[in-house]
């Protein structure tokens, strides 16, 4: 894949990776702040255990080191598309239920949603540099059915789980992009470590 890259494509890829790493770092830091606000406004215990949640992509990866570049990009893209849908859903719930006192929470959620969308776009651009481009979005929308039956407390906990997992994904993504930008057969140069790498 990288071996077939033209110099301009390699440069573009390097630029995308570099910017993606910076964006992941910023996202990590903003999600951490958002988690603080979320826990406070929802009256939750920051250390509450939240089990694996339906529709929330888990950042934990087995055999992460053995993944191919395509697999990394596809994993990331599927995850961020899912987070985009999940955060949109959370924002809608906030609009429905919260009052003016929760404006800061809504704004922070909207800001993170924008970052997630931007990051997904970055990943799509990277996949466009591959031969086949990004996959369609059919599978990315989390199933809406089960959440309709959730109690409000469960929704609060679910939101906590989504944000926690997104924070973990931001760390993983920075490392994925760092792997992608390592000098390979195509001769792409290394990218300086982003802030998320030092987390």
């Amino acid at each position, binding site marked *: 894949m990288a071996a077939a890259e033209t110099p301009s494509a390699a440069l573009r890829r390097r630029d995308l990776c570099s910017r993606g790493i910076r964006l992941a770092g910023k996202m990590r830091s903003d999600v951490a702040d958002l988690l603080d606000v979320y826990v406070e406004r929802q*009256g939750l215990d920051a250390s509450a255990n939240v089990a694996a949640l339906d529709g929330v992509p888990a950042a934990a990866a087995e055999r992460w080191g053995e993944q191919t570049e395509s697999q990394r990009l596809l994993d990331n893209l599927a995850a961020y598309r899912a987070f985009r849908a999940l955060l949109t859903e959370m924002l809608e719930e906030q609009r429905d239920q919260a009052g003016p006192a*929760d404006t800061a929470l809504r704004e922070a959620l909207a800001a993170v949603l924008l970052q997630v969308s931007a990051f997904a776009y970055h990943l799509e651009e990277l996949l466009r540099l591959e031969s086949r481009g990004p996959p369609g979005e059919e599978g990315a929308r989390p199933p809406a059915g089960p959440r309709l039956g959730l109690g409000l*407390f469960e929704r609060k906990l679910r939101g906590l789980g989504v944000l926690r997992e997104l924070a973990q994904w931001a760390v993983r993504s920075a490392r994925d992009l760092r792997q992608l930008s390592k000098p390979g057969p195509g001769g792409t140069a290394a990218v300086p470590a982003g802030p998320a790498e030092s987390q």
Partner: protein
Amino acid sequence: MLALLLLCLRLLRAEPLAYPAVISPQDPTLLIGSSLTATCTVSADSRLRAEDLYWTLNGRRLPAASYAALGATTLSVALARLNGSKQQSGDNLVCHSRDGGILAGSCLYVGLPPEKPVNISCWSKNMKDLTCKWAPGTEGETFLHTNYTLKYKLRWYGRDNTCQEYHTAGPYSCHIPKDLALFTPYEIWVEASNRLGVAVSDVVMLDILDVVTTDPPADVHVSRVGDLEDQLSVRWSSPPALKDFLFQAKYQIQYRVEDSSEWKVVDDVGNQTSCRLAGLRPGTVYFVQVRCNPFGIYGSKKAGIWSDWSNPTAASTPRSERAAGGCEPKGGEQNTTLRRELKQFFGWVKKHAYGCSNLSIKLYDQWRVWLQKSHKTRNQVLPGDKL
């Protein structure tokens, strides 16, 4: 494609949220001061029993004295005289297992029904739109999130319309951007609703023509008045948007020195589009703003609504030659100077304004400009000569 599908399936794990217990009632809404008995029931096939459970409310463990085991798998808790919800997203009543794990949760919404919104006021910018503000009832939204809906209709024959653009002019406001009729009054009211009920404000009746405001005056210029160190001249244009309509406008000016936040208001400007500020400090930067009040639009009898202030325009007064010496004259010297100046002034009037019965401050200003000029000339000829 298959690989991608498998990947998606792996990422979006379809494990249902399996909370091992159920709390009843789920997410209840209660009045402040009321009591509640909630139950936590673990599933019969679980190894958990009622004695393995405990309750927390907003993270604080509730005393065991308030618990009662109702059979082997159900634990109840009695909450008396509930306070208003700590957060608008609801108090978290959680049932835990002995090891602290969360078994189930319920959100308690404790508050009061909404109160009638009050103090509805509306204004129309250039007769094109309508914005209304109101105040919540005294308890406001202390505990429960309250939704506000502004409704309006043409008096006599209109149907109810609902305003769509909220928070445009603060937290309790709504903006109607278009499709407003003139010459027929509107009825306007606000409905407040929360989980405990609905309250409707009194109906306000208004004609758009009576609540018109406009843009701030345009092209505000501030300039010096010759060498007069205590005056500045302000000129502006009337707001362009209302030029086509039959209206009168009155203006207000406010000004302040650069290093103060206190504005002085001149409210006797009338309908002129220029004004002179007097009694200013020499050699000082002043910020000046102007605003406009359009009234009498198409014959409206109501007092108009003031526009926003124009952006501040800055100008400085000339530095005083006397003040530049850093020495204020003593009282006696001041009197002598004033007498001398008045004597000079009357002499000048006799010479330059003979037959002019209309003695005004403008004439006095003209004389001061003349005086400054003559002092300058004198200083140039006789630099040692003092005022």
